[in-house]
């Protein structure tokens, strides 16, 4: 039985991080120059880590698949970033941010990690302002805040509806400065295809130059994975087209545990699906729920008339509308956490009250426009309204928006200890790529917080505790047999893919995978649906490896080959998600097993049996992985059933 050590420091909750920093080992400046660190990914976590490590004096190699680090998908985060500054004097504190995050995650995260996250969040805001991030301000010149789901205070900092963009450009600017100073070397349009391990430690990666098609080797003293989540397993998601789980899965196959894969977040406010040709789903920021009210018709016949185009939503009287979130959750209303809001939308649509195609609900701004005026609403949400209008061809100032839940974020990921190190020594994981601090559900405006906390303020400390005993280790040659072997394996895998020469495009199989995931591993799961999924996923994997067709050559730019390599990994991630979901016989956060719910339809946790992080260990091709449990002990907080009603 493998034991897991999460390396939580001793002491009271609020002293743990300070204690850690006071006693950890450091690397002196002269030695830092001799140490190489590979950072894969240039999103909020990757860019902030690479920049901060470069500033400290480490020699950093930073990789991304896009043509520029500035295009990582963090750029698309809209709403904001949380911090417990309490600038609004509304009763916020580090403890309250910690508590809200822990509760929002349905008590499936580590107390110590979440506390540290809340603790360093304030420094992130300071850091970003110093970089020139143009956060929204009041007329007095101080920073403005707004509210997000799962909180009763206004602690979210924002830059219009483009907060992720501005924070990423801040991190990108810090990164660019280090590139200019020579401490970071950038590898754009490169994709990591494997992790190289020497004597049990992570020592490098194999990456494909996406322009030349050449498979190349890179060595380092430590490797950091910040490649984001695996939401695109579902084909349709709010993720960018290139977002993928391949780096994470390669690490898993080399021995890093994959924790809580079934914890995926379904975001309640996305533009509904409109056709089979659709390539992605567009998010409408959670911030809209500050001022928008969500409703469906109260009577089924009205819903039917609306679906048939005989009735317009604006014609429906106030008393004929069901503001179901306000009705069910009076205390939090439209600002309940995402998992709760998503399930409530599904419940109404399944019951026959949906609008549009039947899988949509209204997000209505008419009251806000009356209360605040058109100009204020436009100032707050103008870019989102414009985005909606371009896609749907309807004016949301005049008619309510239609929204429906979609896959958005994955809380699961590579297992890491308190130091953000995986179960492979020298391999670290940050941001959405790790299984993180969000438990079973992430609160809005917390992804940006966690990505930047990991990159700016946690990893640059904890990685030194590992690197301090590596100062005598000389740089590695990439001619070592471990590199040779890893490269050979990748070349064989590519050759195998190219040789299949079947009848189906990569996308067509990816779409099939996505349908299986949404239908059987989606918002409501059951034992039966997950078992069906496992069976179907084996079939589609077989179909992929026997019938995919990749035109062109491998040793040059080949977009279809890039996609095929990613889909091969999505197939395995999908399987892990279903397996993990089947194992977890409870409902918590984003994981809703229909068998386990309270009489009024809320998630029913089973703390007695499932208060653990499920860590999956790879044991071989086509074999179910071994489950290792990291118990979650709650020392400081009393767990309760989440209540957003009163």
């Amino acid at each position: 039985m493998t034991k897991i050590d999460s390396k939580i420091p001793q002491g009271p909750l609020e002293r743990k991080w300070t204690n850690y920093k006071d006693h950890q080992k450091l690397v002196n400046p002269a030695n830092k120059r001799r140490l190489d660190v590979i950072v894969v990914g240039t999103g909020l976590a990757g860019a902030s880590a690479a920049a901060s490590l470069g500033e400290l004096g480490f020699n950093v190699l930073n990789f991304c698949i896009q043509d520029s680090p500035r295009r990582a998908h963090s750029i698309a985060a809209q709403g904001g970033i949380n911090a417990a500054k309490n600038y609004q004097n509304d009763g916020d504190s580090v403890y309250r941010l910690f508590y809200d995050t822990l509760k929002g995650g349905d008590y499936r995260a580590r107390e110590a990690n979440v506390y540290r996250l809340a603790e360093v969040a304030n420094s992130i805001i300071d850091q970003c302002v110093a970089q020139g991030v143009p956060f929204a301000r009041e007329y007095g010149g101080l920073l403005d805040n707004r509210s997000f789901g799962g909180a009763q205070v206004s602690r979210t900092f924002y830059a219009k509806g483009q907060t992720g963009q501005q924070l990423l450009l801040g991190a990108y600017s810090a990164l660019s400065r280090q590139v200019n100073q020579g401490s970071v070397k950038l590898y754009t349009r490169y994709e990591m295809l494997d992790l190289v391990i020497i004597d049990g430690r992570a020592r490098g990666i194999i990456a494909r130059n996406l322009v030349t098609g050449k498979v190349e080797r890179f060595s380092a003293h430590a490797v950091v994975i910040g490649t984001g989540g695996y939401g695109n397993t579902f084909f349709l998601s709010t993720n960018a087209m290139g977002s993928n789980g391949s780096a994470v899965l390669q690490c898993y196959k080399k021995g890093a545990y994959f924790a809580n894969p079934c914890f995926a977040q379904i975001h309640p406010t996305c533009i509904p699906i409109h056709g089979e040709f659709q390539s992605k789903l567009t998010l409408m920021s959670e911030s809209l729920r500050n001022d928008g009210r969500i409703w469906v018709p109260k009577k089924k016949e009205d819903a039917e008339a609306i679906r048939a185009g005989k009735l317009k939503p604006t014609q429906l009287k106030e008393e004929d509308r069901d503001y179901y979130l306000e009705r069910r959750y009076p205390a939090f209303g439209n600002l309940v956490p995402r998992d709760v809001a998503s399930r409530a939308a599904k419940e109404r649509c399944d019951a026959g009250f949906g609008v549009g195609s039947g899988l949509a609900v209204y997000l209505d701004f008419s009251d806000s426009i009356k209360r605040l005026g058109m100009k204020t609403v436009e100032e707050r949400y103008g870019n989102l309204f414009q985005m909606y209008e371009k896609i749907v061809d309807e004016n949301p100032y005049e008619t309510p928006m239609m929204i429906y839940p979609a896959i958005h974020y994955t809380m699961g990921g590579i297992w890491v200890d308190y130091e953000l190190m995986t179960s492979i020594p020298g391999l670290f994981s940050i941001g959405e790529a790790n299984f993180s601090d969000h438990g079973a559900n992430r609160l809005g405006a917390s992804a940006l917080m966690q990505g930047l906390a990991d990159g700016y303020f946690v990893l640059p400390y904890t990685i030194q505790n590992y690197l301090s005993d590596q100062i005598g280790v000389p740089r590695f040659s990439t001619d070592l047999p471990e590199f040779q072997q890893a490269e050979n394996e990748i070349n064989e895998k590519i050759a195998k893919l190219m040789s299949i020469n079947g009848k189906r495009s990569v996308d067509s199989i990816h779409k099939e995978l996505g349908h299986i995931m949404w239908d059987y591993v989606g918002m409501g799961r059951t034992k039966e649906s997950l078992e069906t999924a496992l069976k179907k996923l084996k079939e589609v994997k077989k179909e992929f490896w026997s019938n995919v067709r990749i035109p062109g050559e491998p040793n040059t730019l080949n977009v279809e080959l890039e996609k095929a390599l990613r889909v091969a990994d999505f197939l395995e991630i999908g399987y892990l998600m279903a397996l993990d979901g089947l194992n977890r016989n409870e409902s918590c956060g984003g994981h809703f097993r229909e068998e386990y719910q309270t009489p009024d339809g809320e998630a029913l946790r089973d703390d007695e049996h499932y208060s653990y992080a499920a860590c999956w260990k790879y044991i071989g091709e086509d074999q179910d992985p071994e489950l290792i449990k990291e118990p979650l002990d709650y020392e400081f907080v009393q767990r309760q059933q989440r209540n957003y009603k009163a």
Partner: protein
Amino acid sequence: MEKNININLKVWRQKGPKAKGAFETYKLDGISVDSSFLEMLDILNENLINEGKEPVVFDHDCREGICGMCSLYVNGHPHGPDEDITTCQLHMRKFKDGETITVEPWRSAGFPVIRDLMVDRTAFDKIIQAGGYVSVNTGGIPDANAIPISKIDADEAMDSASCIGCGACVAACKNGSAMLFVSAKVSQLALLPQGRIEAARRAKAMVAKMDELGFGNCTNTAACEQECPKNISISNIARLNREFLKAKLAD
């Protein structure tokens, strides 16, 4: 309501940076007007793959108009005929049944073609690396509210900071100038007290790098502002010129 159109596509195909490119024509029938332009290209590529041919290569990622990865010169306009959007937000309802649509890559000395419609924009990264930042390290920063900033300046900085670095301004400019891109970053940081300290050095370094990388000069045609998907104003260029002159005079 669902409506389909038939279209003809003239797409630029080019094997590599040095290869000779040419237009190829394709016919696509039954394209839903609710699909996006890139989804239409997905359908074209699916057809090509099923015919055993190589798909058309184009850059794209977020498909919601913020990453700046997509490009494309559509019917003579960067990001196509619609206003204030990127190509990924362009929808087929903007085209007529039976229309011939011409699709080309960005054409500029600063952005060499990699393949088909994909171009190399690393020059933009190099310009930012030359000075598009505030020189602060992580940590040791005073409280975020220590320096109040006028809302008017902060909002204006935000408008400049909205640039997505797509390169449409360069593609639109007859001189292939990157002035709108450079000036947006210089303005954003010059407007804020945090960035003010290095304003002179930044303006000089970024302009020098832009010149070195082969981008052309600005002759005030304002084509860049017209085509910018994010409405970046040419008043940024005026501010850059002021900053640059001030810096040069101080030398």
